[in-house]
């Protein structure tokens, strides 16, 4: 947790800066509105954390979010009665995509970068085919309440946060960190590496499904809803001090990283700086954070643990 402290300092500084620019932010309603907007990215970052800590990437979450929203809208088509079955289906799709990502990466030994990049293309192509290029249908009010109502989205965010912390405290969490740190050592000491990684991808898929439900609720049907989210999630995790390549970092810091990123975007928006700059900011953050990890090496007093997968 100590490693995570800087991100909280940055987050606090950004929150203060937002409050200075916009005093409404200090009121409960103003702050909760921010939490509501940040919730999908925080949840995605939590999911992405599990994959990254185990030494992999998940680039498919953005298009998975789009698929979930577009599919939900088309199946519900404004019919309130269809809400719950479709919600269940959305969750199942998320789990399934995660399972396929995990299985292909571990069992077929395809690098996760390629697996999930492929999945991203497959999903966006499939959704294009199915919809003919533009979303159809409409989400029901009961579906939208999760993302639109501040209380609901805050509660869901809290639940996801608590669950993520509990998972990392459980045996499975330690298994995952060990896998990402040094796969061979973990395997030799009895960790079922393959199973751990597949589960990490499944969790990421589930997180994308939940984020899709929140995002669809927030703003309604859109074919662009998930665009670029995979990079935002990875940026958030890296910003939280989690090491790309796995083995180090806390899930709380990853989620704080997502809040920080969202706070940064809000601040840019408040000062009237165009949204185009968001990508530039993300790019700088990723490079800076990873560079920080590399610069550290010569100064290390103790040899780094688990460099096997980095060197290979």
């Amino acid at each position: 947790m100590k490693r995570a402290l800087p991100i909280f300092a940055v987050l606090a500084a950004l929150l203060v800066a937002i409050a200075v620019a916009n005093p409404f932010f200090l009121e409960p309603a103003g702050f909760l509105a921010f939490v509501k907007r940040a919730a999908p990215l925080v949840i995605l970052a939590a999911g992405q954390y599990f994959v990254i800590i185990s030494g992999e990437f998940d680039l498919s979450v953005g298009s998975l979010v789009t698929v979930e929203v577009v599919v939900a809208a088309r199946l519900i088509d404004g019919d309130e009665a269809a809400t719950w079955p479709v919600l269940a289906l959305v969750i199942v799709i998320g789990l399934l995509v995660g399972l396929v990502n995990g299985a292909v990466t571990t069992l077929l030994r395809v690098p996760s970068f390629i697996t999930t990049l492929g999945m991203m293309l497959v999903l966006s192509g499939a959704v294009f085919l199915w919809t003919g290029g533009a979303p159809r249908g409409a989400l029901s009010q009961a579906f939208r309440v999760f993302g639109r109502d501040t209380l609901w989205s805050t509660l869901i965010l809290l639940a996801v946060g608590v669950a993520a912390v509990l998972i990392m405290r459980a045996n499975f969490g330690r298994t995952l960190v060990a896998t990402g740190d040094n796969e061979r050592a973990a395997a030799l000491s009895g960790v079922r590496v393959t199973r751990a990684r597949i589960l990490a991808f499944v969790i990421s898929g589930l997180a994308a499904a939940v984020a899709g439900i929140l995002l669809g609720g927030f703003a309604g049907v859109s074919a662009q809803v998930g665009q670029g989210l995979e990079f935002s999630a990875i940026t958030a995790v890296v910003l939280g001090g989690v090491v790309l390549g796995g083995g180090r970092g806390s899930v709380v810091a990853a989620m704080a990283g997502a809040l920080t990123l969202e706070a940064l975007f809000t601040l840019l928006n408040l000062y009237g700086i165009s949204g185009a700059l968001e990508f530039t900011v993300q790019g700088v953050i990723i490079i800076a954070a990873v560079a920080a990890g590399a610069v550290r090496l010569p100064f290390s007093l103790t040899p780094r643990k688990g460099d096997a997968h980095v060197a290979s």
Partner: protein
Amino acid sequence: MSRRKPFLVALAGVALFAAACTSDKPATTANQAAPSAAASSSATASSAAGTGEQSKFFVQADYDAQLAMRAKTAQGPADKPWEQAIDPQMVSTSEYKKSGGGYHLCFSNAAVNNPWRQVGWKSMQAEVALHKEITKFTALDAEGKDDKQISDIAELTGKGCDALIVSPNTTATLTPAVKAACGKLPVIVFDRGVETDCPVTFINPIGGYAFGADGAEFLVEKVPAGGKVLALRILPGVDVLETRWSAAKATFDKSQLQVVGVEFTDGDAAKTKSIVSDYLARHGKLDGVWMDAGATAVAAIEAFEDAGVPVPAVVGEDQQDFLQKWKQNNLTAVAPTYPTYQWRTPVIAALKILKGEEVPKTWKLPQPKITAENLDTYLQPNMPPLHYALCGCESLPGFPETWGGKK
């Protein structure tokens, strides 16, 4: 612990970067985010109205012509606006006459990647089905790619088509391909234009200036002097959207309204909602929202609802979700349109050409706007939320199911 220091340095770097952004906003925005002349709100020190520089796409003569056209009465059957034309200059087509029917029509489509194009594409297919003399209809979808459309057009000119309909993906890039096709068969262009007058006819509604001015004039009328208006645009650099904004800018510049921001939404509902929420937080209230396209109008309205403040005067489009919201909440709103019924006209034009009948060289279709008075005429609760009301498809076979509606 050794790792903490460099990490802190990196974070400080990030923080510095953020600080640099915030302390230097006009320069940053002008240089990085909005290279086109139609700059965003923050690069607008030069303009008192807060609307920035005029777009480089702005052509005064076209602007004047379009604004004047709005008041003119179109010729042709009043109940079939897709057959009407404003100020038509007829040209002879006898050289293309092909008697005996059995026509093979071909269509190179830019894309079907948004609800507007989907509604239009269905109407075009239904129009083709109406005419027995069309025995074959070949359509290729360029999927929004210029290079694919160039090869599509080349392919279609070699397929024995009697006439070619083109809906260009972009104006300049497709011009040579259309020119090449003109030499082989009669070409009909609609929606976006090309930079050549070789097509037999070019069909589109009045245009972007009229669209943009319709919305802006409504706000000037409804919002009290000094009121704060937020302008939302999809993206810069596309002529049909630039003209909408430049006409609105011209209107706002002449008014007492204060344009507090001009933002790009990428057509994304979530982003639109966030931008509107941020402006509401920053300015306390907004008195009007102008949009260059209405697809995200409902998201903008929801931002006001979720903030618990009354929805101000808004500009939308003829999509059903917006019309429904308008009716339900009794909004102060207007919906300029870019009617999808223009997808029927090229088929009608092609048949006229093949029969040797005169057609207008520039076929300008009427471009009505939806107001509180005629809202009920266009609101169709049985149609899907993303359906465009001005499809002119109500009388076509298969309506409403083909367009996703319920009987």
